[in-house]
């Protein structure tokens, strides 16, 4: 607009003395209408010209730095970064992380004993869950991958609820339909987990767009692993969130492994964070084992989402201490020493504990008492869950559609008649009548 007016003025007598150079200078403020020769004008990019033939070397950068607050001994490095959370909050953080840890140990064991069919632990990544969940509004919508149980625990999902889902019993919110660890909660704004990787990512972009239109002040957070970041859906999600301006935090748990595939076989560039700027997305890389760093970064990311309706990419660096799942034995592809190194030298729970103790908010007596209470709560919930019956087996036919269609009613009826006739071959007594 400015340039058009300027040009028109140039053509009239009024500004016939305007030098060409001035015209260029003025018009370079607005590259859209620039008809000068100093910038490329392609609709696809209006960057700069160069006459030097050179490729950008992929390793020209050291990589995006890792933001941290505490050292491995839980000491704040730069005091201005201490979130200065109240004792109650930090103690809760510690308790939730340790309770998650206990629940994981017991549930893993229960699978080994054949009590549940499958389980996935969160060892080593507790900091990523609790740090981020604590920084969100409880109404912010969570789309997870499968290793984010701590976010649910933080929000108040009970031990009973976790275990009911793992057992698929009659009190499982998911009605016994999915494998263990596929949690979901409407009340706690946690979308039910699905097994296909990365599918949650463009969904998170869409949900965030809806929130933006609803002007509800909320954001969406989408967790995914570095392995999942290779899926096409990850690319789709980031590009859509950027172009359509969706208030979503893409939180990558880069734990070094996708089952047996180490991150060096997953990508060649600067991790997942390196891709963010390429999509036009605000990006940060964070020490995922530092609860306060995760907290600060997530909070700041949320502020960007809420105030600018823009996506943020947050890559939390961490280490997967446990096996991928109960179907995996990671000694087949990594050394026990490597695991021990991370467990002993850089564990999110240990680092927070140092901080708690240094503040005088935790001690050996409290630790002992909590350990006992924790274990008791977990074991009791476990015992309760195990005793419960499975849901009525006709739940198999329900919720496929909003209303059961005729063909499913017929199939259900056929199976009911079959089960009646061959009852001794079906463990009907394990299911609610």
């Amino acid at each position, binding site marked *: 607009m400015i340039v058009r007016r300027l040009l028109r003025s140039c053509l009239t007598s009024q500004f016939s003395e305007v030098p060409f150079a001035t015209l260029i200078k003025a018009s370079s403020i607005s590259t859209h209408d620039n008809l000068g020769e100093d910038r490329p004008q392609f609709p696809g990019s209006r960057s700069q010209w160069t006459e030097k033939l050179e490729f950008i070397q992929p390793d020209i950068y050291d990589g995006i730095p890792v933001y941290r607050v505490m050292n491995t001994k839980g000491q704040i490095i730069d005091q201005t970064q201490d979130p200065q959370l109240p004792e109650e909050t930090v103690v809760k953080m510690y308790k939730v992380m340790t309770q998650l840890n206990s629940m994981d140990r017991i549930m893993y064991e229960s699978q080994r004993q054949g009590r549940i069919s499958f389980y996935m632990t969160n060892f080593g990544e507790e900091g990523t869950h609790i740090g981020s969940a604590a920084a969100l509004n409880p109404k912010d919508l969570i789309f997870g991958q499968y290793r984010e149980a701590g976010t649910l625990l933080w929000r108040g999902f009970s031990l009973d609820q976790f275990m009911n889902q793992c057992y698929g019993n009659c009190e499982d919110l*998911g009605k016994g339909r*999915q494998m263990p660890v596929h949690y979901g909660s409407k009340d706690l704004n946690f979308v*039910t987990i699905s097994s296909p990787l990365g599918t949650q990512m463009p*969904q998170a972009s869409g949900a965030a767009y809806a929130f933006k239109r609803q002007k509800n002040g909320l954001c969406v957070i989408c967790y995914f692993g570095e392995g999942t970041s290779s899926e*096409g859906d990850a690319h789709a999600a980031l590009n859509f969130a950027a172009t359509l301006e969706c208030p979503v935090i893409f939180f990558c748990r880069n734990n070094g492994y996708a089952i047996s595939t180490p991150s060096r076989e997953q990508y060649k560039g600067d991790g997942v964070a390196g891709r963010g700027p390429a999509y036009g997305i605000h990006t940060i890389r964070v020490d995922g084992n530092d609860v306060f760093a995760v907290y600060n970064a997530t909070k700041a990311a949320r502020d960007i989402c809420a105030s600018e309706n823009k996506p943020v990419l947050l890559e939390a660096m961490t280490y997967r201490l446990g096996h991928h799942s109960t179907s995996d034995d990671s000694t087949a592809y990594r050394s026990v020493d490597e695991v021990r190194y991370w467990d002993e030298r850089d564990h999110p729970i240990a680092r927070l504990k140092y901080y708690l103790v240094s503040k005088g908010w935790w001690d050996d007596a409290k630790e002992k008492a909590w350990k006992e209470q924790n274990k008791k709560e977990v074991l009791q919930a476990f015992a309760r869950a195990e005793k419960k019956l499975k849901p009525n087996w006709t739940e198999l036919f329900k919720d496929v*559609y909003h209303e059961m269609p005729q063909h499913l009613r017929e199939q259900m009826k056929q199976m009911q008649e079959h089960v009646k006739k061959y009852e001794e071959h079906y463990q009907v007594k394990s299911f609610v009548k």
Partner: protein
Amino acid sequence: MKSKIMSKLLMLKSNPCSPMFIRLFSKSPQCMATHFKFQPETAHLDGETAKMNLFQAVNNALDIALAKDPSAVVFGEDVSFGGVFRCTIGLQEKYGKDRVFNTPLCEQGIAGFGIGLATTGATAIAEIQFGDYILPAFDQICNEAAKFRYRSGNLWECGKLTIRSPISAVGHGALYHSQSPEAFFSHCPGLRIVIPRSPIKAKGLLLSSIRTADPVLFFEPKVLYRSAVEEVPVQDYMLPLSKADIVAEGDDVTLVGWGTQVHVLKEVAEMAQEKLGVKCDVIDLVSILPWDKDTVFNSVKKTGRLLIAHEAPLTSGFGAEVAAAVQEACFLSLEAPIQRVCGFDTPFPHVFEPFYIPDKWRCFDAVNKLVRF
């Protein structure tokens, strides 16, 4: 002389698909007449109507949906300027950029984004530019949308998602602009699949699809976008999903199809009456999933002879499902083996299209086989 010209003009006005129209106005020798004759129907509804073709009927339905539901959004590739088939024309100007918008070129993204919108309770109306390109979205549609409610124990669902996409033969579309992918998705419990045969059906079915509490794939036969013209009610109206239509009646043979093929079958019924003295029930399935078995079974129990025709390839096409279900439910009523006239088990060819599609002569021949068995 004048009246001859007048009558020719009238013919043109009423049937833009007539061979005369094509000869007079086509410049390319390759421009072929369509393989079907679209016969407009009347809507059984009181109230004002307007002449609309299929894309105008779709546009009208979208306009009504956007007007009445403030949460509704329409998105996909190129929908802002009106869409490559003009189905979204005028909508962005009317409802704004935040409600009618282009997405990047990524079908899996469009589907996933739509699911996410729908899970928050917003009405998401996505467009996939061609049914031939819906396959990258297969994972999102079948593994996610279809299973969202079931797997969450009804805590979460994406029933407010509708995905529209043009399908089927258009005369020159070849491998990647002619496919009919309904069979792939018919195998996925949790989805609804709806295929309109006309503008009146399209508007009512699309409004029902948008408003139903299940995710819907709404496949629009693209060759009908311009060539199918009817007096469509201007009001907001909905038509039932999962209910097949009997568009012609007869006691001798049952003809089942959907989309464009319904018009082929209507003509086949006329040919059968004229040349064989045989009267046919012509059934438009309307919905592929769930499909209206009762209407088909009742007809076959009456006629004993069934022909299913579809453009999609023969093997594992949706005709296979219909045939299997019919032989199980109506075995003793059958007087002849069930006939399927379909696209051949090849990719959809370009110059050989007239040999590939289940045209009226192949269908007529099958009817002949049925009555002579």
